[in-house]
């Protein structure tokens, strides 16, 4: 008896496999793919291979994330908000607030009794998401993964006056050509994103412990900037990208166990790995 959580994000696809007791067996992260986004089956196959399992061994599979409707082998779909909240509280039982900053949105979740109680999110404006850093990194000619480390060397933060990502992109190039130091510009950029996300989080009301997840949580400069903006301690899981898929796997196990205890048979999908097409027209 095994369980799986599949999280199809805008940029990364994540799969987590657990055993009967909910212990982590394997996890795999792979790019969702820019164009046809057909990688759920591939990522699933790798995760199974690593755990030495076959798709037929999985009792229940929950899909989550943007592309959750297009995972043909998933038995059930649960929103990423519920899965994130569940995943975070399994890793940090004292967590009351989770902030997930991804490449396409930012979500702030309130957790009560290990479950999602309330949330606010921004998926309308790139300036409050990881995309802000992606776009400005490429304008500055540096790698996204180097941004945080470089920003820590800053002697001061240069305030970024433009909110809009497109204009900020132009602004940072102008700052650089004016001779401003790269690390100071980066510190300003991190601060700009952190204060936008902090404003979003405050709408929800902050309660400790606070956990930061999503790709942006891997950026040490952002963790620092968020700590400063929110003036509180921030916990970051070892694998900040995986909380959604982990939560999905935990919810898969809970759903299955509850049905089993009640003696009900859960409908499951065919255990065949086929090509999945995300964001396809028929699901719009």
């Amino acid at each position, binding site marked *: 008896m095994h369980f799986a959580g599949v999280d199809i994000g805008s940029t990364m696809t994540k799969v987590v496999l657990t055993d009967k007791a909910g212990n982590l067996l394997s996890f795999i992260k792979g790019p969702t793919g*820019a*164009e*046809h986004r057909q990688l759920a089956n591939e990522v699933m196959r790798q995760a199974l291979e690593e755990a030495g399992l076959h798709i037929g061994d999985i009792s229940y599979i929950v899909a989550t994330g943007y592309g959750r409707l297009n995972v043909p082998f998933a038995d059930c779909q649960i929103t990423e908000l519920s899965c994130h909240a569940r995943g975070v509280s399994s890793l940090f039982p004292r967590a009351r607030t989770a902030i997930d900053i991804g490449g*396409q949105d930012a979500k702030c979740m309130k957790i009560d009794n290990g479950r999602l109680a309330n949330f606010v999110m921004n998926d*309308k*404006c*790139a300036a409050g998401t990881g*995309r802000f850093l992606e*776009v400005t990194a490429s304008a500055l000619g540096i790698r996204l993964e180097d941004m945080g480390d470089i920003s820590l060397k800053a002697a001061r933060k240069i305030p970024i006056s*433009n*909110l*809009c*990502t*497109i*204009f900020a992109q*132009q602004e940072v*190039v*102008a700052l650089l*050509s*004016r001779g401003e130091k790269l690390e100071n510009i980066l510190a300003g950029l991190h601060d700009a994103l952190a204060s936008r996300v902090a404003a979003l989080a405050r709408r929800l009301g902050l309660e400790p412990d606070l956990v930061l997840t999503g790709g942006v949580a891997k950026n040490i400069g952002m963790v620092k900037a968020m700590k400063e903006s929110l003036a509180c301690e921030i916990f970051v899981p070892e694998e900040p990208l995986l909380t959604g898929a982990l939560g999905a796997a935990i919810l898969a196990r809970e759903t299955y166990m509850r049905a089993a205890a009640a003696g009900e048979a859960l409908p499951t999908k065919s255990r065949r790995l086929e090509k999945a097409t995300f*964001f396809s*027209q028929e699901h719009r």
Partner: protein
Amino acid sequence: MSWFMGIDIGSAYSKGVIIKSVELVASHIIKSGADYRKSAEAIRTELMNKVGLTRNDVAYTVATGSGADNVYFAGHKASDIVCTARGIGSVFPQARTVIDIASQSTKVIRLDEEGIVTNFTASEKCAAGGGRFIEVIANVLRIDLGDFSPLAARSRSPITFGTSCAVFGESEAITRISEGMSKEDIASGVNKALASNIVSLVKKVKMEEPCAVCGGGALNISLVKTIETELDTKLLIPPQPQLITALGAAIIAAASATSAPRKKNNS
């Protein structure tokens, strides 16, 4: 000493004009680039060369636009709202509403019978609220800005953008291209999205007709037509609409020099 200069340093383009009494004698447009001070200087030099003037021939210069501070040789700065109003008033004295579609934002200005600003509103500094959205998508479609409007005009079924952010719109356009959507339908979809943002801005200040349109966005005829349809009115389009604010600055310069000595920012 009867020449006057108006310089409008915008986020994307810098514009300058020289007028003699009220007649436009020269104009120049360059990309603003990273160094606004240099752009201002380049415009002054080019304008004077075009007319054959020396620095002493220009009686007074007024600077406007988001980079106005960099025009160190200007007599004073004037707000872009006031300059746009004066510029439009010189071409269309009958206009009561002006829509200025610039790169960084769109402004809607209400004018009274004398051309005095009575009210205005501006979109937030968000690329989706101004012409920059079009530049971003034109870049994705790999077409020149000048080809955007004719391309959009050929569309049969414009796409509807699911986002109001230019960055997300850029990704959406890339996805749609990979799904086989035509460039025409994407270009037209951008015009539709921008037009609807602009129309809601116009409604905020309660449009009074006749309404004029200016700024670089007014060169996009297909966008102007979409706005006309939504507002159910015919828009007045000046020749060289992107120069209107600089023209207004030059007119203010002429008025400043002929009236008593004046303080800064008292336009």
